[in-house]
């Protein structure tokens, strides 16, 4: 894929936000908050960073891979996959409907291009990513394996089993990213079960930590992901702490857990879309 300018990438991110809102609104279910906050990340990854092939192969040999462990961000992932050519953009209209490949949470069962393992039950994605990264090491395939998790998701014990494994086994072809939005379902992460010093935790587990402080600024995200890439291959797994805001881009949704899993009604949708220019054409 040809490199795009920051302005072009930002346009894709804005369109992704429109897609997400229209998708969850149409079925009155799903999770708008976190995908809105991760729009820059998704677009920077798929349109700039990944060496990937939209002509999908399950085994992913010879390309970079991405796994979405926090599967409830499916609307955002589906949008970026469609917009980068994995399947027709029009298919977004089937999201969460009967007989669709676009399941509520990502699934391989219906063979949607771009998805390599189901997710939705939290805490499992890092382990799977490490597994395929091990396969790449055996094959001497130098491509990277990316995985995203939520910050609330880090409360699951399996994440830390995987964290320990990755450092011990020097999985330096793993670049993980935490959507560090500070929110989960029942409230702010700090009130539910505080993660305390997250950088120190990952460092203590033996990871290289890379903080991306402006997770909703395309330039910073691009630079941050470049830095992460430069840290790979040096004997340690890499962790991006991506500071985002849940609901970013829509003034009444930003910064609160209330939009974790609630779709907008008709009026709210109109209001939200009014704040987001239609850049690439709605599906």
């Amino acid at each position: 894929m040809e490199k795009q300018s920051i302005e072009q990438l930002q346009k894709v991110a804005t369109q992704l936000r429109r897609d997400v809102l229209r998708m969850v609104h149409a079925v009155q279910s799903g999770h708008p908050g976190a995908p809105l906050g991760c729009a820059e990340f998704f677009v920077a990854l798929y349109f700039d960073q990944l060496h990937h092939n939209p002509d999908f192969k399950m085994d992913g040999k010879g390309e970079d891979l991405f796994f979405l462990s926090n599967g409830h961000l499916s609307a955002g992932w589906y949008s970026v996959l469609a917009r980068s050519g994995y399947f027709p953009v029009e298919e977004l209209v089937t999201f969460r409907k009967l007989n669709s490949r676009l399941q509520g949470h990502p699934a391989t069962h219906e063979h949607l291009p771009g998805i390599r393992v189901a997710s939705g039950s939290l805490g499992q994605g890092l382990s799977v990513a490490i597994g395929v990264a091990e396969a790449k090491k055996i094959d001497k395939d130098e491509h990277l394996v990316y995985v995203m998790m939520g910050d609330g998701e880090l409360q699951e014990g399996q994440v830390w089993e995987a964290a320990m494994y990755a450092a011990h086994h020097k999985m330096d072809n793993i670049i993980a990213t935490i959507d560090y939005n500070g929110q989960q379902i029942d409230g702010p992460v700090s009130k539910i079960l505080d993660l305390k010093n997250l950088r120190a935790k990952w460092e203590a587990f033996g990871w290289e930590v890379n903080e991306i402080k402006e997770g909703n600024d395309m330039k910073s995200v691009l630079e941050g992901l470049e830095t992460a890439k430069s840290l790979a291959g040096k004997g340690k797994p890499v962790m991006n702490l991506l500071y985002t805001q849940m609901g970013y881009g829509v003034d009444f949704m930003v910064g609160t857990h209330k939009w974790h899993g609630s779709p907008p009604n008709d009026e709210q949708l109109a209001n939200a879309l009014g704040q987001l220019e239609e850049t690439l054409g709605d599906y």
Partner: protein
Amino acid sequence: MSLDLKFTYTEKKDTRSGFGDGFLEAGRKNPNVVGLCADLIGSLKMGDFQKEFPERFFQTGIAEANMIGLSAGLALGGKIPFAGTFANFATGRVYDQIRQSVAYSNKNVKICASHAGLTLGEDGATHQILEDLGMMKMLPHMTVINPCDYNQTKAATLAIAEYEGPVYLRFGRPSWPIFTPKDQKFEIGKAWKMIDGADVSIFATGHLVWEAVVAEAMLRAEGISAEVINIHTIKPLDEEAILESVKKTGCAVSAEEHQINGGLGDSIAQVLSRHNPAPLEYVGVNDSFGESGTPTQLLEKYGLNAENIVKAAKAALARK
């Protein structure tokens, strides 16, 4: 088509709200009742209890395995913990924790599981557990309960607070007809014959009890007399009630929002094969995962609605 239903409703509500309201009432009755939840307080309807008894409620974060362990500890310390999360994360996710710390150790823990089955809808198969009844009923010491509507779920919640021992209580998300009486008495392990019939016995559990009530009326319109029995307790199973009904009707249908493999139907088959081998037809999910869709669409696609119960009843009759 207007059906002459033996049970009717004026209101619909989710069974999880029956749980939430019963849980609050149980907390008011008994200061030893405590609650735990893994970042799904709103979805489990545990918020009122938490507000009224904050010192008796524990938010564990998204850490179900830890929640089960904490529950076992609270129980051995004399409390009656109600641990709530989605049915998938309340069972499969933490099976070994339940097996060792709760079932084998025989701790008085109430595992409260919402969003069970296909009717959770759009979230799809990752969340639609259809194997939980099987997993839970296989565990020695475990009591397994799957009530059918808001009122029965509330009554069941109150009943398990008074019962000593591990319990799995399964309920759901969709708004569902309330067709059983308010403030009913709930007897663990005692099947409830809701409708008398002579030709075929329908044993239903959970949301599908309503579908069975509808199916009975459809069958009656065709001259077939069906008996409808509400099996709210999968384990211990009311074998006597099952045998008594099938002795009269000579054939049976099981109906559940669960895999056929390992579900209520399997338990009934065991009873019949031992004591009265009679034709049994299964209404349940046939060795497949679910998918996204509305509850009604999914019940239809996966063969779990009243029409499917009618079909199964006729098939059972034909084999008599």
